[in-house]
């Protein structure tokens, strides 16, 4: 379980995350939603070790992991994908996957020349594993393709595949749906659900597509202006007035309502924040 306690992150004078406390239960697919600039990605980056928090604490299964580097977190089984998919463009898709596990014998110059047999055996095992992963993700036909030539959605699948090459405990997915077509998004969604069910992965997903979130995630955490606004099952969240006002109104309701809400939000300014918090409390209770 990941527990974030009273996390604050400010950049200069700008408070990106404002005393946020969340929990990601083991075995869950937790959704993290909110309008642009709500602080989701910053919260993500702090948990994933990209930024050090200004104050607050992050623990994983009770162990304090605040301020560890991404590299160290990777070794602890906390993996992440990126909003814009990262890959090694000049390596093939299979090689991209084979890069993931650590401590391979072939990493040293000495072994490269003098332990060829051991390396070959290890590589064969890794290769088989990578092919299994590609099969799972239904992209076996792309194994030899240079990763740089993949489409945005295929790269997202590849990123998901990376997490399967090691024993991941928890995977943070940053906007898996961004720039991905519907069909591929469903493939990704299926893969996430299967990984969760069959392999017991815990996921935390940032996503703007509410259908996707509603289908996959329970619970859903809503953030706005750096604060945690509400938390609960997807259908409850979507009925929560404060949430609709802060975020969903711009997406789910029709355009006129959205504009009204935006004007209202602009008019109310920061003074409205405590009020929103109250609403959020009620939302949780229902």
């Amino acid at each position, binding site marked *: 379980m990941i527990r974030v306690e009273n996390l604050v992150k400010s950049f200069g004078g700008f408070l990106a995350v404002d005393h946020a406390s969340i929990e990601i239960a083991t075995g869950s697919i937790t959704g993290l939603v909110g309008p642009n600039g709500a602080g989701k990605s910053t919260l993500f980056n702090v948990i994933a070790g990209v930024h050090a928090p200004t104050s607050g604490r992050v623990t994983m299964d009770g162990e304090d992991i605040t301020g560890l580097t*991404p590299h160290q977190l*990777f070794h602890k089984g906390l993996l992440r994908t990126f909003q814009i998919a*990262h890959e090694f463009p000049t*390596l093939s898709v299979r090689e991209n996957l084979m*890069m993931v596990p*650590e401590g391979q014998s072939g990493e040293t110059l000495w072994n*490269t020349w003098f332990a060829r047999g051991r390396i070959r055996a290890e590589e064969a095992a890794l290769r088989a594993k990578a092919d299994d992963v590609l099969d799972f993700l239904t992209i076996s036909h792309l194994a030899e393709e240079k990763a740089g030539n993949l489409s945005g959605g295929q790269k997202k699948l590849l990123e998901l595949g990376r997490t399967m090459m090691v024993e991941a405990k928890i995977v943070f997915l940053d906007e898996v749906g961004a720039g991905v077509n519907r069909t591929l998004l469903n493939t990704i969604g299926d893969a996430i659900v299967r990984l969760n069910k069959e392999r017991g992965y815990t996921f935390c997903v940032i996503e703007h597509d509410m259908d996707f979130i509603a289908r996959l995630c329970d619970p859903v955490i809503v953030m706005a202006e750096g604060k945690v606004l509400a938390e609960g099952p997807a259908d409850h969240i979507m009925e929560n007035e404060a949430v609709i006002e802060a975020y969903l109104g711009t997406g789910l309701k029709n355009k006129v309502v959205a504009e009204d809400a935006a004007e209202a939000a602009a008019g109310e300014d920061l003074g409205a924040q405590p009020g929103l918090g109250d609403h959020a409390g009620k939302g949780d209770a229902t």
Partner: protein
Amino acid sequence: MEVINALVALTNYVIIPATAYGAQLALGALGVTLIYSILRFSNFAHGDTMAFGTAVVILITWGLQAMGITFGPLPTALIALPFGIAVTALMMLGTDRVVYRYYRRIRAQPVVLVMVSVGVMFVMNALTRFLIGVDQINFADGERFIISARTWNQMTGMREPLTLRTTQAITVVTAAITVAALFWFLGRTRTGKSMRAFSDNEDLALLSGIDPDRVVKVTWVLTAALATIAGTLYGLDKSFKAFTYFQIVLPIFASAIVGGIGNPVGAIVGGFIISFSEVGLTYAWKKVAGYLVPAWEPDGLVQLLSTDYKFAVSFVILILVLIFRPTGIFRGKVV
């Protein structure tokens, strides 16, 4: 017949020397490109690393010669080369530990690392001169020619001379072997793939089973090997003088940038473009022109540029490439 004479003269004075020089530049540019793509800075100390490596090779060569060990018709320096590489590699790892590592830790901007490498360059330069002096040193021994002017004349009966020096042939053969080994390493081995992965996407490499410190170390070892080989070949072919290696940084960077910095194939192609331009533009074409246009008796040497200006050639090519195609021929990466 005149055309063949012209061809022989061209081969003798342009093609053979430029090919040997191009191979040396290519190896140098590969070292620069490797550091650039993996450690992400322009390593101006590379020329002096070559000088240091060569100086070590020369000292070992002298030691071997004193013990009476030679390599038959081949230069003794080739036996000394692996030891020279080992010493230079230790030197590089030491430099990294003492100097560069700190700047990586604080995540310094590339331009800061470039300045740091300039500092390292001066230190290496001074160290080399302490080690072996400032004089010109000729350390090529063994058979001097594969084809001397006389054998050529006996072989073909041609008046126009053609010579192929042992060092020129060794340069090209060694460079070819080195490049093949390097490409095999980068393309096929796990360590090589880690290096490419690290070069492709450092952030992601940190989130993989790639040990960044090890990638950095291997990069320095490979760079040391490339620098020592390139420097030794250059020294065998021409002669060794610490200061020449300081100057050679310009054509080496020009080669790397023309080909596309960060791209190994580009470094090799760039090396040959620079060498052929340099040799071609500074060669006195009078003889070749005389063969091809018999009626024409040129007054001058038909030399486009005096050899004193040979570095200007690299400079001009460098500037043109940076203006019109900054990524180079093979689309290198620009940090």
